[in-house]
């Protein structure tokens, strides 16, 4: 009996750990959604064959690189870094600065990964990978969303952008908009 109680207690500890991990994922992201600042990230055209993998739309962003003066070999692929963001004249997110250390002078920064470093004669181009590159959708709706997304970028001038809430370097993707309307709503209208 005592043995069983001990085993149940140990199992409940393990169960608590199993619940804690996803709960912590939710907690941190809900805090960003509730208290973060909204940024609009302009998306760029993609090869349709790459866009859809499984049940999500792959997102590619226009503002994903920085040019530094001089040759800089201190950044390497896969390294963690931070981008300080500001808004351009059209209200879209723009990278103001890339740093290795966490910025202290502003809250408008995002933790990213270095994707590519290209050294030229007197400049260094660095592209970054954002922590939000996919938008999950229901399986049967995703192909329609993919078509809408591609058409809006490749064949029309409709602005397509992702809404991201940012706080303490973390970013949570909450929606993808086409012409200021959520893509899910547009897909629903298509299916009616």
């Amino acid at each position, binding site marked *: 009996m005592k043995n069983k109680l001990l085993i149940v207690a140990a199992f409940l500890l393990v169960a608590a750990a*199993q619940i804690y991990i996803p709960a912590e994922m939710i907690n941190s*992201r809900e805090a960003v959604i509730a208290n973060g600042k909204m940024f609009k990230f302009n998306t760029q055209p993609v090869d349709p064959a790459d866009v859809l993998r499984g049940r999500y739309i792959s997102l590619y962003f226009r503002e994903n690189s920085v040019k530094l003066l001089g040759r800089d070999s201190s950044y390497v*692929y896969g390294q963690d870094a931070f981008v300080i963001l500001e808004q351009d004249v059209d209200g879209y997110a723009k990278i103001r600065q890339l740093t290795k250390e966490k910025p202290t002078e502003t809250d408008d920064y995002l933790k990213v990964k270095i994707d590519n470093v290209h050294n030229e004669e007197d400049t260094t181009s660095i592209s970054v990978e954002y922590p939000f590159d996919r938008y999950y959708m229901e399986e049967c709706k995703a192909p329609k969303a993919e078509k809408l997304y591609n058409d809006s970028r490749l064949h029309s001038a409709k602005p397509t952008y992702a809404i991201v809430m940012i706080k303490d370097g973390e970013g949570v993707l909450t929606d993808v908009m086409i012409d200021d309307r959520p893509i899910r709503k547009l897909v629903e209208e298509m299916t009616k």
Partner: protein
Amino acid sequence: MSRNFLKALPELIEAGIITEATSESIKNFYDQKKDQSQSRVITAFAILGGLLVGMGIILILAHNWDELARSTKTMLAFLPLVVAQALGVFVIWRKSESAAWRESVSALLYFAVGSSMALVAQIYNIPGNLGTFLLTWMLLCLPVIYLLRSSIMSLLVIIGITVYVNEVSYWTYSGKEAYLYWLVLALIAPHYYLLAKKNPLSNFVVFHDWVIALSLTICLGSLSHEGEEIMYMAYLAMFGLFVIIGNMKLFSHKLIINNPWRIIGSLGIIIMLLMLSFEWFWEDLMSQDEPFTEYREFYLYLFLLALSAGFIIRKAAQASWKFNGFLEFVPFVMFPVFLIGQDSVGIPMVVVNLMVLSIGLVTVRNGFRLNHLGIMNYGFLIIASLVVCRFFDTDLSYVIRGVMFVLVGLGFFMANYFMLKQRKSNEK
């Protein structure tokens, strides 16, 4: 059969062979058996019904997933996990002696843990890192192996951690070593040991043998750093160790299909030797700037050799020990060959080719002696594979290569013919 037997009972009573009381006892016995099998059928249908209802609910929810609020989606993401955990507590408290309950709830819990993390990632559009996801999933399930005494959980965790190693070391551009794999395997080892000790003939032991042997074969390469050629040596040593384990009393009496250590070990050694029989390997080895001692793969090779030597010495010290064949000693014989290979290409190539040919011929001879077609043909297959390999990398004329193929083929047909003829005459 039982129905016919029950019909014959009145006849048996009339003939005075059994009494009325005995007849009643027999009827009660078969009624009870029928009840048990009926209840198993009902249980099976109940499980099937439950699965179908569950899948139906999932499909309805999935179709309307986009319409649900984030909070509702989050609750649904946790639901399978909470249900599986509740069942886990129930099993520990009331059904701990039932293997069926423990194993089925463990399997449910394994997938519930993974799906809850995956669903949360979907709800919040988190791209995540597959390696981190797999590792977290396996570490969360590992303690359940011991809490629910579950072998299914153990097998699933080994499979999951093997996929983790592939993701981190092989499939990612800047592959890294996955050292935690070895820790997880070490933590599962006590469960395997207790399982093998308590019930050595159990199917779960056989499944574990296969899964562990295959997992080690896949994951050893993740320890490679810059000495790729030397990693071949480590693999040869590991396969030699597998053969030694397969020849141990614990495994050698089993059917060959239930002895993956022997199968994977001997096949692995043959394949490694065939690869080492090519000139390109020795040219690459000789072109290395640093001595062997500069590569971690060399120390891995030495460690595996030391482990193999320990097992062989322990076996030889036993009175019942008998020689199990040359394969166990191949990694040791290859040690000086590898050393010579740092400065020469020709000598190691000749030695390896002769070694493969010898193993093939000895296997054919063993097949004849044991009157075993399978072993004999396996020996011919080894020789034929060597001939095929030489077909591709020697400068011999096509005529000579053709003659070699004909000779091996003729040998193959004649050996099988004579053995079958001998069997027929023995039967007469």
